[in-house]
């Protein structure tokens, strides 16, 4: 199933995204659990605020990383995966 660009992702209730200096990484925290994110996952989740659509996020990231070219597919794949992991919801 493809992800519609006008959908808006948000973190699932009880999930918190933050930078951890000791791990030199962004992490997702949830009840009694933690996922250490790699750089690209951290960059995408940083833009997930429950306000902006997938299209907005792709646009922001393409501006941040102009050398990366089109990011729509990578971002979409990651967000779908994050939904399956129960990290995020779409509205």
């Amino acid at each position: 199933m493809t992800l519609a660009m006008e959908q808006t992702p948000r973190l699932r209730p009880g999930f918190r995204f933050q930078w951890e200096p000791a791990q030199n990484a962004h992490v997702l925290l949830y009840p009694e659990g933690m996922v250490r994110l790699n750089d690209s996952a951290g960059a995408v989740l940083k833009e997930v605020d429950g306000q902006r659509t997938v299209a907005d996020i792709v646009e922001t990231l393409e501006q941040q990383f102009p050398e990366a070219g089109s990011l729509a597919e990578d971002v979409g794949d990651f967000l779908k995966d994050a939904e399956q992991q129960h990290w995020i919801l779409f509205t």
Partner: protein
Amino acid sequence: MNGHHAMPAGDRPGIGPPLWLLAELTYRCPLQCPYCSNPLDFAQTEQELTTEEWVRVLRQGREMGAAQLGFSGGEPLVRPDLPELIAEARQLGYYTNLITSGLGLTEAKVKAFRDAGLDHIQVSFQASDPELNNAVAGSRKAFDQKLAMARAVKEAGYPMVLNFVIHRHNIHQMGDIISLCERLGADYVELATCQYYGWAFQNREGLMPSKAQLQTAEAEVNAYRERLAESGSAMKLIFVTPDYYEERPKACMNGWGSLFLTVAPDGAALPCHSARLLPIEFPNVRESSLHSIWYDSPGFNHYRGDSWMPEPCRSCDEKDKDFGGCRCQAYLLTGNADNADPVCSKSPHHDRILAARKAADHATAGLEELTYRNANNSRLFFRG
């Protein structure tokens, strides 16, 4: 894109930071569950840490990189400074978990904790019906209170984790338990089969389910999982099966002194909440900083790496996977904590696990024959 990363490096080669801090605020508890993981002699514990001492521990832990914080006990709600500790912890950036029986909780407290920044409340139940729940908990009003508090937790917008300790007297309720959780709107359900430490070890024969009971329960959980998936429910079932029915030991605490740091009510710092029973000297946060405790104390370095391992672990190609299993279990079952965890079929002491399985097939003891966890019973374990 895959979201995961390798584990971080700490301040010493080969030793990562303590990412999880468990603050056992007190051993006091209104319930008397016969499988409690607290030490048998908890009633002789010296003075609890003060608010200032806990705040210092929280700050030091966070500075070292701890991100997950559990407030547990005993029943952490008996500490009047809990709201203050929650606020401090949240402000430091911890993800804060309150692990509670629900007794002593009120709707007002649920909301006040939320305002102080508490991230999550885990309410434990003993069974799916009031009779059995209250008999196990040793409290007549426990079940109704737990139900009311589970609803209040949900109402206040917390993620809801319900925890059930599973044993031979409630393992037949799996379907009812899960259906209760579904009605309450749980996000996660922990079905944690008893682990035999503390009071649970003392009561093992009266708690351990038989293999047949376990297989029925597993089938019931799996069937329920399929139904949840079909209905699109996001409720997650976490069924922790007992290691006594495994042939290889669990990678206990993900390795000794690897991720977890427990601070007991009197300030003893431990690599897990059971380690107190080992004949090893552990440091106290009243005397040392968390940093020197974690990286430099003999207690925390005792079972790091693998040079301490005797056979069959020493030459085993799985030693990096399970770290020889659990030190506490090795000590409780063989008298020597260096030994391989007897759960392992390669252990020369595996017969003790087999004997426990056999006993579980023939056990007849009722709930009333268990030793309940309370101060009177605890005193029997240190008065001699």
